[in-house]
């Protein structure tokens, strides 16, 4: 074991068992595999409240985490041309029932690098928790970043989650992100990502959420295709029932020759829930093209009846359809 890994190991051992074990258990409830966070071969970052419980760096990854009064500031850089066998695992959580967690992240993906992140945000006991994520992401020329974020908020609905990001994709760069909040209650969520894409770059944003009782979901996805042949897709899959509400604003701008963009929104509504979708397409160059599709409504009759003809009752059939749409 290297000196730094030995230090990390010692640091983990020095943590009160309850903190580290509690976050691992919460991580597991959100769908993560705690073994990844314990492995020295997998890069990881573990944050509980405003405490950095663990950082595991691998060659090609620079990560600095600084504690703030109400959260953590993270600067993470991937070296140009770097490749990794496994995704980098991130775990953010608040274990107490109340608290604020502000995560300020600055990701710098070096030219030509390829990196994948698996992030789990978990608030299993939340009664009154606010989680704020403010991200600044720069994807260098020809680099690829994939970021998948899964949330678990417990069952009380006492979470307010505000993920915001400003993303810049340089020429030939690729950015894929998927945000998934379909386990437990949402509480209140306001997702707001803005991506600027340079020539020959690509951005795909996907937001998935399942709201019930009085959950509130707001999704704002904006992709600005600023370079020629830039491509982008803003995709959302939202299901709401009971008295939950959702609003989706998917915006794609074609601002350069041959830019191609698409907005794709599906919202399923049940009970007294209310859903709004506002797809916005804007083109400022006559050689660009942006399209959109939005469907809001209940589950399709044929889909429902097909599953019922297999013996599922209506509730179970809806659940299968919604869970499928949300990628579970």
């Amino acid at each position, binding site marked *: 074991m290297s000196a730094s890994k030995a230090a990390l190991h010692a640091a983990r051992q020095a943590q009160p068992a309850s903190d580290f074990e509690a976050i691992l258990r919460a991580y597991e409830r959100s769908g993560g595999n705690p073994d990844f966070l314990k492995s020295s071969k997998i890069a990881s970052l573990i944050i509980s409240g405003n405490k950095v419980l663990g950082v595991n760096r691998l060659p090609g990854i620079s990560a600095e985490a600084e504690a703030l009064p109400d959260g953590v500031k993270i600067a993470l850089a991937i070296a140009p041309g770097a490749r990794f066998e496994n995704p980098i695992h991130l775990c953010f959580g608040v274990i107490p029932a109340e608290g604020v967690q502000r995560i300020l992240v600055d990701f710098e993906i070096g030219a030509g690098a390829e990196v994948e992140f698996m992030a789990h945000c978990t608030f299993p006991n939340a009664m009154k928790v606010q989680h704020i994520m403010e991200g600044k992401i720069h994807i260098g020329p020809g680099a690829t970043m994939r970021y998948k974020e899964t949330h678990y908020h417990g069952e009380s609905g006492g979470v307010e989650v505000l993920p915001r990001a400003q993303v810049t994709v340089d020429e030939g760069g690729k950015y894929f992100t998927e945000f998934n909040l379909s386990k437990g209650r949402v509480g209140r969520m306001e997702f707001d990502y803005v991506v600027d894409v340079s020539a020959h770059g690509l951005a795909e944003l996907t937001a998935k959420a399942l709201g019930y009782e009085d959950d509130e979901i707001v999704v704002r996805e904006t992709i600005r295709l600023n370079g020629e042949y830039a491509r982008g897709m803003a995709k959302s*899959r939202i299901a709401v029932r009971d008295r939950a509400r959702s609003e989706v604003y998917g915006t794609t701008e074609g601002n350069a020759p041959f830019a191609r963009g698409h907005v794709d929104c*599906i919202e399923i509504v049940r009970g007294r829930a209310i859903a709004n979708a506002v797809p916005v397409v804007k083109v400022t160059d006559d050689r660009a093209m942006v399209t959109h599709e939005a469907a809001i409504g209940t589950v*399709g*009759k*044929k*889909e429902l*009846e*097909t*599953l*019922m*003809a*297999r*013996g*599922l*009752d*209506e509730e179970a059939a809806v659940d*299968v*359809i919604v*869970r*499928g*749409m*949300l*990628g*579970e």
Partner: protein
Amino acid sequence: MAEQNGILLEVQDLHLTREDREILRGVDLQVARGSVHAVLGLNGSGKSTLAYTLMGCGGYTPDAGTIVLDGVEITRLGITERAKQGLTLAWQEPARFEGLTVARYLSLGMKWPDMARIRQALEAVALNPATYLGRYVDESLSGGERKRVELASIYAMQAKLAILDEPDSGIDALSLDDIARLIHQMAEEGTTVLLISHRDEVVAIADAASLICEGRILDTGDPARICNRYTGCCRPCEHTELVEEGVAYERL
């Protein structure tokens, strides 16, 4: 012919009106247990309406008549209850499901989901399990692939009675043999098949056939004879116009 042991499905005087138009005008039909029974008719003759009405789909509640499956009257039951009684339906144009894998889709109708059976079902429709188990039942499947997956799901379910609405549509001619093989396999494993089609070639698969026209079963019997009557009378028939002119059904 598969072993037949009495009547599995008995439909009596079934009437259905949709949008002020009577589509089923007194359907009488008996399907023998263990058989492959074809219902042959032109487009617009009421075949698919009969299938949806038998399955209990929304908007297809009969005005009159009875449907009895395996001795249990199911006329007023919902779709799920009918499925639990052993009835299922493969739609002519199957639905697509975002994010639902083929493996999961096939397992949904099985009482005891079993991966060996799922693989067997895919192989029965000439789909390689290694390739298809993880595929999604969505737009990424071609029409023919989706259709095969649908038939595989029906096969995997092991229903008492499977209604297959135009199982050959959207599938290339070479695949018709695969479908015939599958249908016979289903019958041999105890699933009675009600095969609905407008193509007389498909009826060759059946043990018995009925001819449907303008919402009534006109004739039931040997598939070859029904087929001859269909090709000889129905295909050249401009029945709708004739009916509108008041010409009787006996014309057939």
